């Protein structure tokens, strides 16, 4: 027998750690010792023979290892192993292995397994480590978070220093001295009323010649800017640089739970997206902005290759777009002069939802404080044209539907916007709604928030519990189904002869966005980011906890697949698209993707039942 006889098997093992560390002769001996089995879903569990433990090497298919109590220990796909703990420990088999997808499995007998361990240190070490890891019940199938250090909660000081609103500044200063901190939170009736910092004591007390008996509420900053503890560190940095402040109280459920300072953050990290935003804010002309924006695709690729959560990638990229938009507005105002009235720059669609990815187009509009005169019309015409053109040159192409601030149709006063929304809400024609749905994902990127709030409050007031409108929105969102056919096979999009694959955006994430939007509008929720909408819907018991978590997971998983697919396309110099070819997936991932689409399908059935009453 020459060495190449079982070539497909030796080739497979040769690419598999730790078998890749074996010599060719040993590898061939190992191949010869294998038996090959096939496990079908119909038998549910892999029959594990207690008397004959062996190493199972998964060649294809998907399996789940569960403990005696049914806890998930591991999910396995091509090139993964099971059965080694009892081979190493000699204990009897206690875990069960459930078959998720039919698969081919190689079995290695204990004698050969032990021989290989004694012959190769690497082989031995690999399985000992895997065993130790298994003992810690580590699950490997979750997408990595950007790193827990990237949440505000990981960097903030946990027990914030607080003082009552009626205390004097001297008392506050003593407290700060003893705790050796630079700020104290001011509490009124168990709620945060303000923050007092070193700088306040200097500027508002000492420099004014006031004495230490001054009550803290006269020296503090009232109603300070705050963040939630699960916000990204990066968002904290953004707020600080926007408002030129160094302390941010962290609030969860209206209770102060910590404080984060610029020093905390500096200690934490130096972050690439923030550097990019800093750079954007330093540029003084369009050409230099364009050259800075060339880094955005690279930023996206770095985030993808760091295996960041898709939701975080969306928020980071959108923050860059927001910064770019603001910078363009400010630069053009330097040329055109002060605006004749307050206005808000509105972002719709993906920028509104903070889930931008590669090759986003722009969807924006302008909200004006009051009617324009001739001068104002000319001013905003010039401003919006310049900003939209700038965004286009920076890689955010013009909106094909012309939903842009440079289109006079989408430059309106508060009154006009309200009337516009009313036409959609009062007479929800399916066709009109199809185009209008992106407007309901709106966010203010620039301008006074109170102006924007009055528009949003008004819109939500009219949509909340508005059965007819919600039925229209729900029916509209049900027009596309997730790509699962009969027998749970994937339905692939075709372009003539060519198979384009699964459309992860329009048949996946867009459907979840639609579902979250309908629920959010029905409950009058202001948030427009899909993940946050789902979280709020769960907290308000509008969607039950299990469904909400499933939907959020499905959203994250599909978005993650879409981004990593684009990462693959990018590194292989292919044009970026939303289409994924399922044959390129391992069965484990195929299984998870199918589960995710199943969740979307179920959630669609949910809104159908809740909002569209078909008699």
């Amino acid at each position, binding site marked *: *027998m020459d060495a*190449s*006889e*079982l*070539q*497909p*098997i030796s080739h*497979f093992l040769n690419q598999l750690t730790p078998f890749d560390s074996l010599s060719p002769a040993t590898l061939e001996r190992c*191949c*010869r*010792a*294998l*038996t*090959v*089995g*096939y*496990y*079908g879903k*119909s*038998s549910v569990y892999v029959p594990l023979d207690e008397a004959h433990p062996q190493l199972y090497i998964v*060649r*294809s*298919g998907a399996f789940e290892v569960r403990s005696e109590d049914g806890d998930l220990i591991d999910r396995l796909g091509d090139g993964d192993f099971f059965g080694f703990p009892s081979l190493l420990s000699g204990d009897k088999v206690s875990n069960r292995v459930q078959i998720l*997808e*039919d*698969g*081919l499995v190689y*079995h290695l007998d204990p004698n050969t397994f032990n021989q290989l361990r004694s012959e190769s240190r690497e082989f031995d070490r690999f399985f000992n480590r895997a065993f130790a890891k298994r003992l810690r019940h580590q699950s490997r199938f979750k997408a990595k978070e950007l790193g827990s250090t990237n949440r505000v909660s990981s960097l903030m000081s946990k027990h914030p220093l607080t003082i009552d609103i009626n205390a004097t500044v001297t008392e506050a200063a003593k407290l700060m001295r003893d705790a050796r901190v630079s700020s104290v939170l001011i509490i009124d009736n168990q709620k945060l009323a303000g923050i007092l910092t070193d700088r306040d004591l200097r500027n508002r007390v000492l420099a004014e010649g006031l004495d230490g008996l001054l009550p803290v509420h006269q020296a503090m900053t009232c109603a300070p800017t705050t963040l939630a503890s699960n916000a990204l560190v990066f968002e904290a940095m953004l707020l600080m640089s926007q408002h030129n402040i160094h302390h941010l109280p962290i609030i969860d459920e209206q209770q102060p739970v910590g404080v984060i300072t610029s020093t905390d953050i500096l200690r934490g990290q130096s972050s690439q997206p923030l550097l990019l935003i800093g750079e954007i804010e330093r540029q003084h002309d369009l050409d230099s902005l364009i050259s800075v924006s060339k880094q955005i695709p690279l930023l996206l690729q770095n985030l993808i290759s760091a295996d960041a959560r898709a939701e975080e990638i969306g928020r980071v990229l959108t923050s860059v777009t927001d910064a770019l938009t603001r910078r363009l507005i400010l630069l053009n105002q330097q040329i055109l002069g002060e605006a004749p009235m307050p206005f808000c720059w509105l972002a719709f669609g993906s920028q509104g939802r903070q889930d931008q990815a590669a090759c986003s187009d722009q969807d924006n509009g302008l909200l004006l404080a009051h009617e324009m005169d001739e001068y104002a019309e000319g001013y905003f015409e010039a401003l919006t044209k310049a900003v939209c053109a700038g965004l286009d040159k920076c890689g955010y192409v013009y909106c094909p539907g012309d939903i842009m601030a440079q289109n006079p149709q989408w430059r309106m006063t508060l009154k006009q916007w309200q009337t516009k929304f009313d036409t959609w809400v009062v007479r929800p024609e399916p066709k009109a709604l199809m185009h209008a749905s992106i407007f309901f994902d709106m966010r203010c990127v620039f301008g006074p928030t109170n102006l924007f709030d009055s528009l949003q409050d008004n819109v939500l007031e009219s949509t909340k519990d508005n059965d007819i409108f919600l039925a229209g929105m729900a029916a509209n969102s049900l027009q596309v189904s997730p790509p699962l056919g009969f027998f749970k096979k994937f339905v692939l999009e075709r372009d003539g002869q060519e198979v384009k694959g699964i459309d992860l955006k329009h048949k996946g994430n867009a459907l979840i966005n639609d579902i979250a939007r309908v629920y959010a509008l029905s409950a009058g929720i202001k948030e427009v980011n899909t993940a946050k909408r789902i979280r709020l819907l769960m907290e308000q018991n509008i969607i039950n906890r299990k469904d909400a978590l499933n939907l959020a997971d499905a959203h994250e998983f599909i978005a993650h697949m879409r981004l990593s697919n684009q990462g693959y396309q990018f590194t292989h110099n292919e044009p970026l698209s939303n289409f994924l070819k399922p044959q390129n997936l391992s*069965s484990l991932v195929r299984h998870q993707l199918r589960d995710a689409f199943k969740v979307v399908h179920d959630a669609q059935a949910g809104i159908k039942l809740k909002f569209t009453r078909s008699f």
Partner: protein
Amino acid sequence: MLHTQVLKSRLCWRAFRSHKEQLKNYYQALLPLLDKPLNQVPMVAVDLEMTGLDAAFDQILSIGLVPIRDGQLVLAQAQHKLVKIDGSVGQSATIHGILDNHLKQALTPEAAMEWFLEATLGKVLVAHHAPLDLAFLQNGLTSLLGEKVSLIAIDTLAVERKRLLRQHEVLKEGSLRLGACRDRYHLPIYAAHNALIDALACGELLLAQVASISGTEQVKAAELIG
């Protein structure tokens, strides 16, 4: 049930009619296997490389065997033999990659048939598109033993055709090729093309087919033999 009885009586008849002890044993060893559930039946996946497709004048070049025991392919007992031929491999070398000088160490056709009969004794043959392989083997055995030999086998192609027709699928051209069948069960693609690898590929396909058919009740060997 009826099918099993017909198969059994046919095997008994062949054993009775045969004048060769070797062949009598071969047929009789198969008899008790027919009513057993498939995962208890010893089987052997077989594949041949030939100089062409016509059993009347093309010759066997190599034989690959992979035994199946307790529903698992046993690679330790997998065997691959090259067979001497009259003349040259000619153009067929482009398909199987066996060149004339490979065949210098090969078995004579007679020795190969002796070996085959011994290696497959008491095991049900499994092949993809079995009629073709059986025709070559039967010819070889007939000229070795001097009496007509007729073999039985599980044909994974026939199993697949039946399964697809039962699902009311339209059979497209090429959809029953070994590679296409394996793809349907997400079995890995094996690039190499020799008798041993194809026997392995065919054996794996059978395991996958059995897993998908069996569900609750267990399939008996006779049900799959054409």
